[in-house]
C-alpha cells in the first residue's frame, strides 16, 4: 500500500459538508462544525512468553456541533452518507430552540498546512515483523537477569485521517500516524516482587524503531524491576527532589499545565485565573506547549478543530504569559485559538488540551545539581499523576527513585507517591540543568484520552512531600 501522502482526505465531499453545515444552522446558531474521522488501528500483545493476541479495528464517523450563544449541541454518527450526516446535524441543532436562524450559506475553502511525511506507515509493515518486535523485547528483558520472572509487551499503531469543516468556511484535513511500544517486567526476589516498565511512542511510523530499538527499552524495564528488589521503603516527609531529565515532565503537565487551560480559567476553577503578568514560578522557569515540536507523542499539524498548532510560551522566566485556547473559549474572549482544541475521537466534543508541554533547559551541569544536594531524592522515572486544577494540589507516582546522600545517588526506593501544590513547586525550583529529554504519555480529561508529550531538563525542587512509609 502507498505511504500516507499529502493527498487530501476526502472522506466526505465538500459540497455535502456545505449542505450539512447549512442544515445544522437552519434553526439558528452562531457556529457549526463537522468533524469526520476514519481511524484504523492495530495492536499486538505478548504476555507470559506468548503472543496472545493480534487485534485490529476500524472506526469511521462524524461528530457535528452547533453553538448557539453559550450553548453547544453535539451529535455523532457512524453513518457518513449525506442522510446520516443531515440527521446528526438535525440532532445537534436541537439546542437551537429559538428558531428563526434563516439562511446561512457556507462556502468552504481548503487550508493546506504542511503535512507530516511518514516514512514507513503501519500498513507497509508485515504482521510478522511487528510480532517479531515483541519476541525480541521478551528475549531482551529475560536475558537481563534470572530474577526476571514475567514479561509483557505491547505494540500499537494507528492511522487517523480527519477532516474538519466549519461554518466560517474552514476546511482542513490531516493524516496522523502514531506508533507505540511498551514493556513491563516483574522481578522476584527474597523481599517479594517488583515491577519495571518502559515505553516508546512517537508521531511516526514503524521507522520509529530505527532510532529507538525495543531491546534497549526492554533491558531498561528489566533493570528497573531488578534494582527495586533491593529497594527500601520510601521516606515520609518533605525532602529536596532532583528530577532526572525527561523523568518529570508530567509533573509540570499536571502541576501547572492543566491550570493554564482556558476552560478552567474561564470558569474560575484554576489557581492561575487572573494571574497573567504575575510571577508564578522561580526565575529561569520557562514553560512551553508546542504542537509543532518534532515527532513527539503530542505533535499535531492541525488540532481537532482544524487550526494549525503552534508554539505557545505559557510561562516566561517565571512570569505567566499566556493560557491555552480552543475555538470556543477563544471566541468567548474575542481572540484567536492557540491550536489546543483536541478530542479523543469523532464521538467526543473538543476541549482545551495540551500537546507537547515542556520546561526549557537552563545552564547548570546536571551532575553539579546532584553533587550540591546533600540529602534528598533522585527521581529517574515518574509514573502517572493527577491534579485538582482549582487548588493546584497534585500527586505523582515515583517508579524509579533513589535516596541522595552527600551529593551521590544511594539506595533505590520502593514505589511511592509524591504530593505537592503546583504554584508552590514552581516557586521552589532552585536548579535547572542544561540537558533535556521528552517522554510520551496519555492525558485524561473529562473522560477523554489524548496522546501528549512532556519534557524537562534535570532540575531540583527544594522540597516536595514524599509519601512513603519510612520515617525521615
Amino acid at each position, binding site marked *: 500500500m502507498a505511504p500516507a501522502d499529502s493527498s487530501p482526505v476526502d472522506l466526505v465531499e465538500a459540497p455535502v459538508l456545505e449542505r450539512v453545515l447549512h442544515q445544522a444552522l437552519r434553526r439558528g446558531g452562531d457556529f457549526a462544525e463537522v468533524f469526520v474521522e476514519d481511524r484504523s488501528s492495530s495492536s499486538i500483545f505478548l*504476555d*507470559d*512468553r*506468548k*503472543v*496472545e*493476541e*493480534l*487485534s*485490529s*479495528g*476500524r472506526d*469511521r464517523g462524524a461528530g457535528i456541533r452547533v453553538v448557539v*450563544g*453559550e*450553548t*453547544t*449541541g*453535539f*451529535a*455523532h454518527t*457512524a453513518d457518513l452518507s449525506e442522510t446520516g450526516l443531515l440527521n446528526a446535524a438535525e440532532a445537534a441543532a*436541537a*439546542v437551537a430552540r429559538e428558531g428563526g436562524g434563516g439562511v446561512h450559506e457556507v462556502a468552504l475553502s481548503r487550508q493546506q498546512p504542511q503535512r507530516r511525511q511518514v516514512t514507513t506507515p503501519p500498513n507497509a509493515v508485515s*504482521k*510478522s515483523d511487528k510480532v517479531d518486535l515483541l519476541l525480541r523485547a521478551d528475549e531482551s528483558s529475560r536475558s537481563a537477569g534470572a530474577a526476571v520472572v*514475567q514479561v509483557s509487551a505491547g505494540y500499537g499503531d494507528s492511522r487517523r485521517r480527519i477532516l474538519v469543516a466549519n461554518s466560517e468556511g474552514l476546511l482542513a484535513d490531516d493524516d496522523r500516524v502514531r506508533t507505540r511500544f511498551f514493556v513491563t517486567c*516483574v522481578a*522476584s526476589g527474597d523481599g517479594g*516482587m*517488583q515491577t519495571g516498565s518502559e515505553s516508546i511512542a512517537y508521531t511516526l511510523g514503524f521507522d520509529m524503531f530505527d532510532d529507538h530499538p525495543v531491546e534497549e527499552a526492554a533491558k531498561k524495564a528489566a533493570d528497573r524491576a531488578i534494582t*527495586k528488589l533491593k529497594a527500601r521503603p520510601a521516606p*515520609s*516527609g518533605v525532602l529536596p527532589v532532583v528530577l532526572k531529565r525527561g523523568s518529570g515532565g508530567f509533573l509540570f503537565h499536571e502541576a501547572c499545565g492543566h491550570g493554564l487551560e482556558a476552560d478552567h480559567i474561564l*470558569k474560575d*476553577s484554576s489557581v492561575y485565573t487572573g494571574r497573567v503578568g504575575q510571577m508564578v514560578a522561580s526565575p529561569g522557569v520557562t514553560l512551553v506547549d508546542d504542537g509543532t515540536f518534532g515527532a513527539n507523542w503530542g505533535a499535531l499539524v492541525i488540532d481537532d478543530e482544524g487550526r494549525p498548532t503552534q508554539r505557545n510560551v505559557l510561562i516566561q522566566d517565571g512570569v505567566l504569559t499566556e493560557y491555552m485556547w480552543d475555538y470556543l473559549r477563544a471566541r468567548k474572549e474575542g481572540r484567536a485559538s492557540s491550536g489546543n482544541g483536541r478530542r479523543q475521537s469523532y464521538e467526543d466534543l473538543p476541549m482545551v488540551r495540551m500537546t507537547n508541554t515542556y520546561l526549557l533547559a537552563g545552564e547548570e551541569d546536571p551532575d553539579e545539581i546532584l553533587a550540591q544536594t546533600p540529602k534528598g531524592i533522585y527521581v529517574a522515572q515518574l*509514573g*502517572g*499523576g*493527577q491534579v*485538582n486544577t*482549582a*487548588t493546584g*494540589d*497534585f*500527586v505523582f*507516582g515515583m*517508579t524509579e527513585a533513589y535516596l541522595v546522600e552527600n551529593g551521590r545517588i544511594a539506595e533505590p526506593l520502593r*514505589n*511511592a*507517591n509524591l*504530593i*505537592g501544590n503546583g504554584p508552590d513547586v514552581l516557586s521552589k525550583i532552585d536548579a535547572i540543568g542544561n540537558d533535556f529529554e521528552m517522554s510520551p504519555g496519555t492525558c485524561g480529561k473529562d473522560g477523554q484520552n489524548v496522546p501528549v508529550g512532556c519534557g524537562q531538563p534535570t532540575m531540583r525542587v527544594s522540597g516536595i*512531600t*514524599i*509519601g*512513603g*512509609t519510612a*520515617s*525521615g
Partner: protein
Amino acid sequence: MADLLGLARQVLEQAKADEEVEVYVAHGRETSIRVFEGEIEELTTAESAGVGVRVISGGRQGFSYVGALEPTAAAEALVEARDNARFATTDEYAGLASPDGVEPPVLDLWREDLASFPTDDKVGLALELERRVRDGDSRIRQVVSSDYVDGYGETAIATSRGIEVSSRQTGCYLFVHAVAGDGDDTQTGFGYSVGRSPVDLDLEAAATDAVDRATRLLGAKKAKSARLTAVLDRRVTATLLGILSGTLSGEEVVKGRSLFAGRIGEKVGVDGLTLVDDPTNPLAYGASEHDAEGLACRRNSLISGGELTGFLYNTYAARLAGTASTGSAVRGGFRTTPGVGAQALSLEPGTQDQTEIIAQVGDGFLVQSITGVHSGVNRVSGDFSVGAEGLMIRSGELAEPVREVTIASTIQRMLQHVVAVGSDIEWLPGAATGVTLAIDDVALSGS
C-alpha cells in the same frame, strides 16, 4: 431496537469448520446534558455501536472490530480476525467459553420510563442541581459543572461453541462539581446520584454531598506526619476494593503477578473480613446476567472470615490455571477482547455507621478522597501510597480539615489491620460497593 443477536448469528454463519468464532455486538445510546450558570452548556446525543470478532484457529487467537452494525463490515472484521490469528503464538489453552450448565440469574436491569423522560425534564434536573449547590452555602464560589446523563446499552454474543445470549440495561446519573472559597482558600467537592431510571435519582443528596465535601475542607492544612488509624469514606473504600480485585484476578495469579498467588486457604485479613463479587445482586450497578463471554454470572467468594477463598477467572485464565471460569470475563466494549475482572464487589457490612466508627477510633484521619491511585499503588508488590484529603478525628469527633498529605501502607498490611467495617453500604457505579472502612497503622505523610 436493532436485532443484535440476528447480526451476531449472521456473522457466525461465515465461520469455517476448523475455527472457533465469537461475535460480540454492542449498541448504546446516551444523552448528556451539562449546565453552567443557569444555561445549557452542552447537550450531546450519542449513539455508538459495533461488532468485535474473535477467531481461534489451531490454538491461535486473533481479534478485529468495526465501529458499525453493518453485516458487510462485520464480515470483513471476521476475515481480518482470522488473518490476525495466523500470527499469534500457538497456545493450547486458547479457547472460547463452553456452556457450563450454570443458570443465569434473572435480573431486571431495564427501565422503560427512561426512554420517555423528556429532554426538558433532564435539563431541569441539571439546572435544579446547580441551583441547590449554589444556594447550599454562601461559601460556594462556583459550580464548575452540573450534569445529567442517561442512556442504555444492549449486547449480544453468539459463538461457535453454542453460546447465544443478549442483554440490555438502562442507567442515569447526576453529577456536580463545586468550588468553595473563603478568602484565598479554595476547595472542591463532587456530588452524584446514580440510578437505573430518573425516579431513582436523589438530587438533594447529590447537592448536599458536593456542598459539604467542598466547604468542610476550607481551611485545610497539611498535617504532621504520623502513624494513625485511617477511616476511609465509602467511596474511598470502593476504590480500594477495585485495586484489591486486580490482585485477585486468576490471570494475574497464574502468570505470577499477584501477591496472593499460592495463598488460597491462608489467613490474609482480619477475622471479620469477608469479600464477595456478586453480579447476581440486582442492587449492584455492575449486576449482569452474563459475563462478557456469555457465561452465567455467579456469586464468587474471595475472602471469607479473613481467609483467602478464591480468585476470579475468565475462560482463558481458568484453562491456564486448570480450573473453571467463574463467569468473570469483562470487556470494555466491542473494541476489546474479554479480560478478567470483578463486577460487583462488596465487603460484608459491620454493625456501626460512620459516626459510631469515628467515635470508636477516637484519634485518626477521616479520608474523604484519594488521588493518584493509578500511579501510587502497585498491584504486584502491594505498595500503596496515595494523595489524601479529609478531616482529622480527635476524641471521637471530626476535627480540623487536612490537605496535601499522603497515606501509605501495603495492601497486605491493610487487610491485616482492618479495625471496623461500616454498616453503611452504598451502591456505586463501577465494580465495587462503598462502605466505611477503618484501618490502623497507616502512615500519614505531611509536614
